[in-house]
C-alpha cells in the first residue's frame, strides 16, 4: 500500500544569533492510512518540528529545510506554493495542540470559531469558477449548513448539549471540554491525518483518559490516521499501534508498540523506559539517563547520543549510525546492531 505520509531524510535548521541550530538531522518516518503512530521523545528532540513540517507551519526564515522530502499521498509538499498549501491544510491535515486555552479566541463564541473553521475548509474545498457562482447556495444557507455541521462535530467529540453550548465562550468550558472543541475544529475538514501535539499534557489524568478514549474512538469511527506526539510513554502504550522514538533530531528506533516495550533495542529507548517510575520498582531502583540533551548548535559528532550512552563504542564518536532492521518491522539506528541483521 502506498504511504499516506512519507518523511524522507528531513533536515531542518534554524538560523539564530547564537548560530545555526540543527533541529532535525535526517528524520525518516512513514505512515500508512489508518495508522496510529506515537512520536516520543524528550524536550527539544524535534518531535513537534517534525510534525509541524508536514503542514509546513514552520516559519521560514528563521527555519530552513536543507535536505529531504515530505510527500503526502504521493504529492510533494515542500514544492507546493503557499496558496496550494492553504487548500492542503484545510482538506488533509487537522492539528491539535497542547494548550487548549491559548488556541481558542476568548472574544468569540465557540459557534463563531467552529463555523469559521467549517466555512473556511469548505471554501478551500470548492474552488468555483466565477460564472458558476450564481448557482451556489446563499450565504445564509451556507452558514446554516456550517452551523449544523459544527453541532454535529461537537456531538462527535462528546460535548454534551452541543446545540446549546455552541453559543458559549471558551472560558465557560473546562480544560477537557476545550480540548474536545479543538478536536472538533481539527476535524472540520474531514482530514486524512490528525496531528495531535501533546494533546493531554495540560490535563489531569482522569481527563487525559477521556481524551485518549475519544481519539481512539474517532480512529475507529472515521478511519483517521493519527500522529500522536507525546513525551509520556504510558500514553503511547495506551493509544498507539506503532512508536517512533526521537532523540536530538533523528528517529532512533521504530517498531510496533508491544515490541518496543518488550524488546527495546536502542540504548536510549532502554534508558527512557527504565526512567519511568513503574509498578515493581522499589526505592532507589529507578534509573535515569546520565547527562543532558545535547546542544543543537554544536551537536556531538557521530551518534548524538554517544556522550550519554552506556554502551558507547569508538565508531559512535565519528559516524552517524544508519537505521537498520533489528527484527520484524523493527528498526533502530545504532551501531550495536550489524547492518545485515
Amino acid at each position, binding site marked *: 500500500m502506498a504511504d499516506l505520509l512519507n518523511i524522507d531524510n528531513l533536515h531542518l535548521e534554524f538560523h539564530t544569533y547564537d548560530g545555526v541550530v540543527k533541529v532535525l538531522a535526517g528524520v525518516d518516518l512513514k505512515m500508512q492510512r489508518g495508522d496510529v503512530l506515537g512520536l516520543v521523545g524528550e524536550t527539544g528532540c524535534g518531535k513537534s518540528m517534525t510534525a509541524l513540517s508536514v503542514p509546513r507551519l514552520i516559519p521560514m526564515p528563521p527555519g530552513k529545510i536543507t535536505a529531504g522530502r515530505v510527500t503526502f499521498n504521493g504529492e510533494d509538499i515542500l514544492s507546493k506554493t503557499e496558496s496550494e498549501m492553504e487548500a492542503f491544510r484545510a482538506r488533509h491535515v487537522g492539528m491539535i495542540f497542547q494548550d487548549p486555552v491559548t488556541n481558542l479566541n476568548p472574544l468569540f463564541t465557540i459557534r463563531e470559531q467552529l463555523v469559521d473553521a467549517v466555512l473556511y475548509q469548505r471554501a478551500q474545498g470548492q474552488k468555483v469558477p466565477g460564472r458558476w457562482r450564481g448557482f451556489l447556495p446563499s450565504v445564509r444557507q451556507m452558514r446554516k449548513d456550517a452551523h449544523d455541521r459544527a453541532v454535529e462535530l461537537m456531538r462527535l467529540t462528546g460535548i454534551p448539549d452541543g446545540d446549546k453550548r455552541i453559543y458559549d465562550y471558551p472560558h465557560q468550558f*473546562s480544560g477537557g471540554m476545550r480540548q474536545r472543541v479543538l478536536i472538533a475544529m481539527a476535524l472540520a475538514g474531514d482530514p486524512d491525518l490528525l496531528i495531535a501535539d501533546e494533546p493531554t499534557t495540560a490535563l*489531569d489524568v482522569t481527563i487525559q483518559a477521556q481524551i485518549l*478514549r475519544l481519539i481512539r474512538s474517532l480512529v475507529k469511527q472515521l478511519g483517521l490516521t493519527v500522529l500522536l506526539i507525546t513525551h509520556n510513554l504510558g500514553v503511547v502504550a495506551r493509544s498507539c499501534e506503532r512508536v517512533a522514538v526521537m532523540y536530538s533530531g533523528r528517529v532512533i528506533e521504530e517498531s510496533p508498540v508491544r515490541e518496543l516495550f518488550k524488546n527495546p533495542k536502542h540504548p536510549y529507548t532502554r534508558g527512557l523506559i527504565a526512567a519511568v517510575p513503574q509498578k515493581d520498582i522499589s526505592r532507589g531502583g529507578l534509573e535515569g539517563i546520565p547527562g543532558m540533551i545535547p546542544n543543537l548548535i554544536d551537536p556531538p559528532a557521530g551518534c548524538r547520543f554517544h556522550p550519554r550512552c552506556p554502551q558507547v563504542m569508538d565508531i559512535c564518536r565519528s559516524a552517524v549510525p544508519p537505521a537498520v532492521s533489528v527484527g520484524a518491522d523493527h528498526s533502530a539506528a545504532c551501531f550495536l546492531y550489524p547492518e545485515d541483521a
Partner: protein
Amino acid sequence: MSPLLEVNNLQKHFPVRGGLLNRIVSDFRAVDDVSFALREGKTLGLVGESGSGKTTIGKCILRLLEPTAGQILYDGADITHLKQRDLRRLRGEIQMIYQAPAASLNGRMTVGGIIGEPLWIHEGLKGDVARERVLELMNVVGLKEEHYYRYPHEFSGGQQQRIGIARALAVQPRLIVLDEPTSALDVSVQAQILNLLQDLQDQFDLTYLFISHDLGVVRYMCDEVALLYLGKIVEVAETEVIFEAPKHPYTQALISAIPEPDPDMQREEIILRGELSSSPLMHRGGGCPFAPRCHAEKLATCETVLPSLVEVERQHQVACHLHPPISIAEVH
C-alpha cells in the same frame, strides 16, 4: 512515636466576590477539614487533580497562607498562630521546593547568591564561610564549583531544580514540602531528581510532604498517600495498600487512569464522567462531593449526607458511604 507534623481539621477558604458592590458573596473552600499526620523520616504523598487543594495545604503548613481554621502542629508545638518573628525560626526547619524551577529562582542573582541567601538570613553567614557552605551544598546536589557565578537561565530545567533543592537544604531543614518537584521535567531528568531526593532523605534524615498529581512518581517516592478531592481527603493508607487495594471509587478511577508504559497490562479502565468543575465548587455539605462523577453503585445517602473519613481497616481511612467503619470490636 509522635508525628513530626500533624494537621488537624485544616480549612482554608478564599472569598468569592461578586454582585454590585463587589461584596463577598460566598467562599471557595479550597481546603475543607483536612487532617493527617506525618512521621519523622517518612514521605507522605498528597495526590489530587488540579484544584483539589494540594498546594494550598502545603502553603498553609509553611504559613505562606493563613489557615481559616484548624490546627497545625509541628514537633508537638502549635504553629498555627505563630508571630512573624517566630515564623522565621520555623522556616529554618520547614522548607519548600517548587514546581517551576525557573520561576522560583531569582534571575538576577547568581547561583551562589541564591543558595547563600538563606544562610545569611537564618544564620548570618557571609563571605568565605558562606561560600564554603554553598559549595558544599552544590556538591551535595550534583552541581559543579564553576556554576557558582552563573545565572539560573544558563541552566537546564533539571539543573535549576538542583539549585532549588540546594537552597532548601541550606538551612538544614527537617521537613521539606515538595510541590510537584518534577512535573516540569523530562522523564530521564525526573529520574535523576527523584533519586537525588531519596539520597538526600537518607543522608540528612529528612521528612517529605510530597505533593504531586503523578501517581507513578508518588508510588515510587512515598510511604503513605493521601488522596484529595475538592479540598477533602477521600482516602489515606500506606502506598502499597492504596495501589493494590484502593477502596474509594475516586482512587480506583485515578489508579486505573495511570498510563502505564506496558501495552500488555490488562485492567479495567474506569472512565470518569465529567470533570472536577462539574461538581459544584461551593459545595456545602449536601452529600458526597464526588457523587456527581461517581461510577460505583449509589446509595441514597450519597446525595444527602457528607461521608466522613473513617478507618475501614487498620491504617486505612476512607470517606465513602460504601465502606462502613470497622467496629471497635473488630479492632480488638
